[in-house]
């Protein structure tokens, strides 16, 4: 069997890549290792910019669980502030509903989709990726393609197989996420329509966050790998302490019930040597297309998937799938989201110490315009670069 394009991974980057490739008339196969209804270790905040950039069909819009108007931010001291924009600036989703809707969109445009199918190896010839070895219940299959797009998330198998992954522990965070149930009326009353961010303390510098949905929420904690050293407690232990003992959060979360626990990582920019190879491209988190300051990645990954597919379409049309041609992808990514990704790294290091976190709070409290900009930044309504110059 041979396709023009094989996309590995059915998250936002992979789904958009498959949709764009299929729409261009190329034969496209998308492979997902799990069932599409799998939940992801993720807050599920779809940034406002995504609605401006992508023309979602109603089947995708129907998966929106709750508006995001901005953020509630709480410093280690307990000092807190709510930053609300005047209109919704993002949407909260369950990834178990949002991702399949995106994949269904790709399918509607002509992509062939297979779930519960794992890519266990790449086939190579003369330094070029020629296809994948796919394993499913039906057996093991050798599938050829002109271009393979690796949209297989953090610690990407495709990136590792091609020797593109850089073991850069300062650009990777470990995460622990609880998906929880909570009565809708209680979320409306206590959490409202915003992401909640709790900055870590001197003793435990990891940040915690809450992303509310209609009748449940995602609760998570994350910390850069190299910052998890001296402490003798795991992220899960710290998150449990937070949800049970934090003076503000424990009150909000007391009737929230854990339905799923998920450890994970996030790969930020600088974890890949490059995002292209002879006959292959990386998109989404596998290419580190995540904003390090916030850990948010859905929008930027979707842009990555879109640009990867467009580059692949051009390459196939020109009959040149070499690295030399595919390098074009890097230029496209840099042009559209490069500044955002770079700034995300810079902002993360800037707000790392406790004193500066307290200062951020004071600045937000003092200035309504700063609160508005913060809401737009966290919810991804505007590019980071447009907002950061006011800081």
């Amino acid at each position, binding site marked *: 069997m041979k396709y023009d394009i094989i996309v590995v991974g059915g998250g936002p980057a992979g789904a958009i890549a498959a949709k764009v490739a299929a729409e261009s008339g190329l034969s496209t196969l998308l492979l997902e290792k*799990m069932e599409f209804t799998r939940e992801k270790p993720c807050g599920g905040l779809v940034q406002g910019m995504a609605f401006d950039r992508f023309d979602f069909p109603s089947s995708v819009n129907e998966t929106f669980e709750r508006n995001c108007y901005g953020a509630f931010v709480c410093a280690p001291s307990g000092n807190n502030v709510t930053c609300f924009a005047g209109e919704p600036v993002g949407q909260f989703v369950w990834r178990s509903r949002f991702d399949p809707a995106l994949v269904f969109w790709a399918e509607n445009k002509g992509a062939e989709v297979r779930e*519960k199918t794992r890519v266990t190896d790449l086939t190579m010839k003369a330094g070029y990726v020629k296809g994948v070895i796919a394993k499913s219940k039906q057996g093991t299959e050798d599938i050829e393609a002109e271009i393979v797009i690796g949209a297989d998330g953090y610690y990407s198998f495709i990136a590792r197989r091609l020797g593109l992954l850089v073991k850069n522990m300062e650009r990777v965070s470990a995460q622990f996420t609880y998906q929880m149930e909570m009565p809708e009326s209680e979320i409306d009353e206590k959490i409202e329509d915003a992401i909640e961010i709790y900055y870590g303390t001197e003793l435990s510098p990891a940040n915690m966050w809450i992303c509310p949905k209609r009748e449940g929420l995602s609760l998570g904690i994350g910390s850069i790998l190299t910052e*998890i050293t001296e402490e003798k407690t795991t992220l899960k232990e710290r998150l449990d302490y937070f949800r049970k003992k934090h003076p503000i959060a424990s009150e909000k979360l007391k009737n929230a019930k854990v339905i799923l626990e998920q450890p994970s990582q996030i790969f930020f920019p600088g974890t890949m040597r490059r995002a292209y190879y002879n006959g292959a491209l990386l998109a989404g988190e596998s290419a580190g297309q995540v904003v390090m300051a916030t850990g948010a990645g859905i929008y930027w990954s979707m842009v990555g998937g879109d640009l990867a597919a467009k580059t692949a379409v051009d390459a196939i049309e020109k009959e040149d799938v070499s690295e030399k041609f595919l390098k074009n992808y890097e230029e496209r990514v840099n042009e559209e989201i490069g500044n955002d990704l770079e700034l995300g790294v810079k902002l993360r290091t800037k707000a790392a110490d406790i004193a500066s976190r307290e200062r951020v709070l004071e600045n937000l409290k003092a200035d309504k315009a700063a609160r508005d900009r913060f809401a737009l930044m966290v919810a991804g309504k505007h590019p980071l670069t447009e907002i950061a110059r006011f800081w």
Partner: protein
Amino acid sequence: MQLLYPLKAKELKIDLEKCTGDGYCAIICSMGCYEIKEEHASVKDVGACRVCYACEMRCPEGAIEVIEEYGGEL
């Protein structure tokens, strides 16, 4: 509400030649898969692993390999 996340490990391999017993794996793993015994990492509970690969990524010596269980959900 039911949410799926069917990832499981078949094996957590520790190369004892490379392992220095620094304990990063035991701290990074929220699922309690590792413990430090006699100055080396040791697997306490492979069944708790959800295949996040944080141990493999964090180990400065590259002494850990997570082998994923494919069979479970296929």
